[in-house]
Every structure is written in C-alpha cells, then in structure tokens.
C-alpha cells in the first residue's frame, strides 16, 4: 500500500513542479499589479506637486511632470505658517511618545507582574473600554476641558497620553507576561522594589514592544485630526493637520501647492515607517492577539 502511494507521488512530481511555477508567476503578477495600484496615488501626489499650473490643467493628464518645478515645495511651505505648525506637531508628538511609553509600561507592569485584589476585573474593564466609540466620551470630555480652561491649549492633546491607552496596555502586558517571574523574584530577593525592577529590568527587556509604542504613538499623534480640531483655536498653535485644512480652504485651485504641502506633511511618517517598519507591523500583530 505505502509503496504504491509513494511511487504515485514521485511520478506526479515534475508536472506538479511546473504547475507550482505557473501559479507562482501568476501570483507574482497579481502582487505587482496590486503594488502598482497602491503606489499610483502616491506617485500622482508627487507628480502633481511638481507640475506647473499649465500642466495641471492639460487634458488628458500627463503621467509625470514634463517640466518639474522643484520650487513648488518651497513656495507652498512658505505660503503659510507650515514651519510653525510642523514644530507644533512635533511638540505634541513628543509628549505623546513620552506619555505613551511611561504610562503604558507602568500600568502594563502592574497588570502583568504584581498581584493585587481586583486585578482581573480591572483588566476586563480595560478590554471593554476598547469597544466604546470615541464620540460617546467626546462631548463630556470637551465640557470637562472647557471647565478646566484647557480649550485653546495643548493640554487636552497631551495630558490624556499620560493616562495610558487600552490598546498599548494590552499589548505590553502580553509582552511582560512572556518574561519569566523568576527574573523578578530573584531581583526581589536582592531587595529591589517593583519600581526598580520596572526601570532596570523590564524596560530594557521590553525594548521591542516599547519601540512599537513609540512609533504608533508618533503615528497616531501626527495623524490626529479630531482633537486638534476641537481644542486648538489659535492659528499659531495649530498642528499640521489643522493647518493643512486651513491652507486647503485658502488655496482652492493651487493643486500643485496643495499636493506639495500634503507630501511634506506625509513625509515624516513615510520616513519613520520605512526605517522602523518592523515595529509598526509587530504592533498590529499583537493587536490581533486580542482574540487570544
């Protein structure tokens, strides 16, 4: 029985190999087509940013800029307070990263490695809060910040970052849970406090997960639109997202400038993503682990 089965497999091998090669080629062509589709919009953005106004209104459209005008980037940047908005965005993102790393790693350590009554129920609540739509808490939060006199300042954008986010807490707790308890117990034998263990042992060991918190905090803060829209009232304090929106309403048909400005707004994220891609995608995988 076994012998015949074996020969059958061997006999079919060459045709199967050829079939596999055909399938792989089809697969590669489909992937390339998909990649082209995904990249075309970004190419269109760069290409439009480099065109002059005449070329923008040519019809049918040109697929690449025939006389690239590199100064469009500079001119667009200079025609509004982009430098200020850029720095504001960096400022807010810096605090988002700092708060995100500090708060989430502390809270996650508490949930992963310290035993205290109520721990499990609180952790279930954290997971539950992930389901609550942003808009349900948005109005009361606005009222709260208005009462505190924080509207028009960066505080509503920054302070919550120091209170942890359910997503990161969950992710980091999963990571900490993978670090054996014996490491902590032996440190405690030597008289180390939990704070000391967190600082000296856990933070260094959790570096990859912390990096994920860093890049995602940066990404989300940079792209955040709703909070700056609600809380920033003074043009000089705008972040890039809101600044770009003002710029759009002021330069209706200057499409090359619009696309040039959009390019510059997206560039930092693209650069960070290209360099630290692994940490972005790791975070998403861990997020998927919510299903358990």
């Amino acid at each position, binding site marked *: 029985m076994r012998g015949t089965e074996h020969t059958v497999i061997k006999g079919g091998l060459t045709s199967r190999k050829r079939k596999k090669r055909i399938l792989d080629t089809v697969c*590669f062509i489909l*992937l390339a087509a998909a*990649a082209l589709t995904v990249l075309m919009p970004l190419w269109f953005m760069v290409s439009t940013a480099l065109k002059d106004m005449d070329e923008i209104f040519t019809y049918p459209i040109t697929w690449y800029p025939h006389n690239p005008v590199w100064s469009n980037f500079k001119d667009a940047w200079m025609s509004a307070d982009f430098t200020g908005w850029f720095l504001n965005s960096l400022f807010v993102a810096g605090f988002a990263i700092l708060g995100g790393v500090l708060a989430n790693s*502390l809270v996650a350590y508490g949930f992963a490695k310290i035993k205290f009554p109520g721990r499990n129920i609180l952790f279930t609540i954290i997971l539950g809060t992930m*389901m609550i739509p942003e808009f349900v808490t948005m109005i009361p939060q606005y009222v709260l910040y208005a009462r505190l006199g924080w509207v028009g300042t960066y505080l509503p954008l920054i302070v919550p970052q120091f209170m942890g986010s359910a997503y990161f807490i969950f992710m980091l707790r999963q990571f900490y849970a993978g670090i054996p308890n014996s490491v902590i117990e032996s440190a405690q034998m030597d008289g180390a406090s939990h704070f000391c263990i967190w600082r000296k042992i856990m933070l260094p060991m959790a570096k990859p997960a912390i990096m994920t918190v860093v890049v995602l905090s940066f990404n989300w803060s940079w792209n955040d639109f709703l909070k700056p829209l609600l809380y920033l009232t003074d043009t000089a304090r705008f972040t890039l997202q809101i600044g770009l929106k003002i710029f759009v309403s002021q330069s209706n048909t200057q499409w090359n400038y619009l696309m040039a400005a959009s390019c510059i707004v997206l560039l930092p994220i693209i650069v960070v993503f290209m360099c630290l891609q692994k940490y*972005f995608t790791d975070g998403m995988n861990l997020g998927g682990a919510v299903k358990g």
Partner: protein
Amino acid sequence: MKRGMTKREKKEARAGWLFISPWVIGFICLTGGPLLFSLYASFTNYNMTSRMDFIGVANYIRMFKKDPVFWKSLGNTLYYVLLAVPASCVCAIFLATLLNRKVKGTPVFRMLFYLPTVLSGVAVYQLWIQLLAPQSGLVNSVLRLFGIEGPSWLADPAWTKPSLVMMRVWALGTSMLLYLSSMNSVSKDLYEAADIDGATFLQKFRKITLPQISPIIFFDIITNMTGAFQVFQEALVMSKNGKGDPAGSLLFYNLHIYDEAFTRYNMGYASAMAWFLLVIVMTITLINLAASKYWVHTEEGET
C-alpha cells in the same frame, strides 16, 4: 484564610494600585465619568452654557420621531458599513493569500501594501479629492485607458460613498497582516495531506484556509464594522461644505453628532445620539458573538 492579607501582600497590593494609577485616573476622568455624564446629559436640554434641565426622554423621542436627518445619517452610515466591510475584508484576504505563497519579493510587497495604512488625515483626504476629480483625476484617467468613462465620484451623490470605500480599501494593511499571520499558523500537514489527494489551489483555499482562519475573519469583521460605523473625518473634510453634501450623501451618523454638538451646541441631544451609537456598537458585537457559534471553526478544546 480569605480575610486578612499578610503584610507582604498588602505591600504588593499597594504597589499594584500605584502602578496602574495612571490608567485608573484616566478611566475615571476620561471614560467612566464621561459615560455617566453623557448618559445623564442625554435626558436634559444641556447646551454647554446656560441650561441643563431634565426633560425625560424628549431627546430620544426627537431622535426617532422628529429628526429626519437622524434616519438619513443612520441610513448613510449603514450603507457605508455594508459596502466598506465586505470590500476591505475580501481584498485583505486576497492580498494575504497572495503574500502567503511567499514568492520572490514578498517582504517588499508586504511593506508597500501596508504603507497607506500609516498615512491618514487631511493630506490623504486632499490627495483622494484630487485622485477622484472627474476630469483630471487619476482614477478616471486610468479608467479612460480602458475606455470607461468614470462617474464624477465626490460630486455625484450616488458615488460619494463608494469613493470613501475605495479610500478605505486602499488602507487595509492591518486586516491584511492579521490574515497573513493567521494563514501562517495553519498547520502545514493539512495542506500536505490535501496535496496527496490532488487538491487544487482553490479547493485547498476553500476547504482548509478559510475554515482555519474563520476566527480571524470574525474578529476582523467586528472591528471593521465598529470602526466603519464611526466614519467621520473623511466626510467632514471631503464633503463640499463639511456638512455631508452633495445631497447629504456623506452625512454620516458621527457627522450629525458633531454638527449638533459643536456647531449648534445641542449637547443634550448629541449625547442621546452618542449613547444610541454606543448601543449600536455593542449590539453589533453581541450579534456577531452569537452568530459566530454557527460559522466560526474552532478546534476541539480551544475557545
């Protein structure tokens, strides 16, 4: 035994609460407290400045009986969800299946497919407004190469929602990675056994891959549905006046809440709408959980 903690346990408990205190404070001030406040506000005529009188269920009656915009926004949102979720789910599984064959260049492809996911905000919306321009936009220009005259997308009420769906599908990286990693963890033995039986690629996909990754499909559909239900920024930036035009076709549920809360300051009414949103999202999750029993494949002994 149960009562009375030892001194050490007490110290541990104190440390534990200290460590999680940032989250506890945040939960009370920014989630739990606000939830209760907005529940109460939904029964008042709160307007942020002068009044907060208890008016019973008047806001809810207004919502269901007297506000045609409410039903329109709910309808628009449902339409969007029913279009966007299956579209991005199918495309994500398709791309993950291709990537899972691990042909040459897969890491590069994976990175490229994920790239749009990290891009969002006004710059991206502005870009898509350009891409979807009827005359000079990229989308219609490409369609013209194939001899198709595309619609006028964001200017045509019938095509605005498909426009936003297209943009959403462009950024499906998160779902794609989820599917890819779950496909990776499907046991190779199953495929080898199928190979011996001479199963084709499609057969293996239907009979092995799909059932094996069904828990992830289920998870992805829930998160996508609740996410799509909260569509807001795109509509605010990409509709002509920020109010969901043309013809109110982009007037989504959250845009209506935003408008009531922050341009008319009907905070009480907006809170009622927000709570109804919470109920919808919870219901979606519960229905999915209940339905999953019937179609999600689980291994014996696995929950």
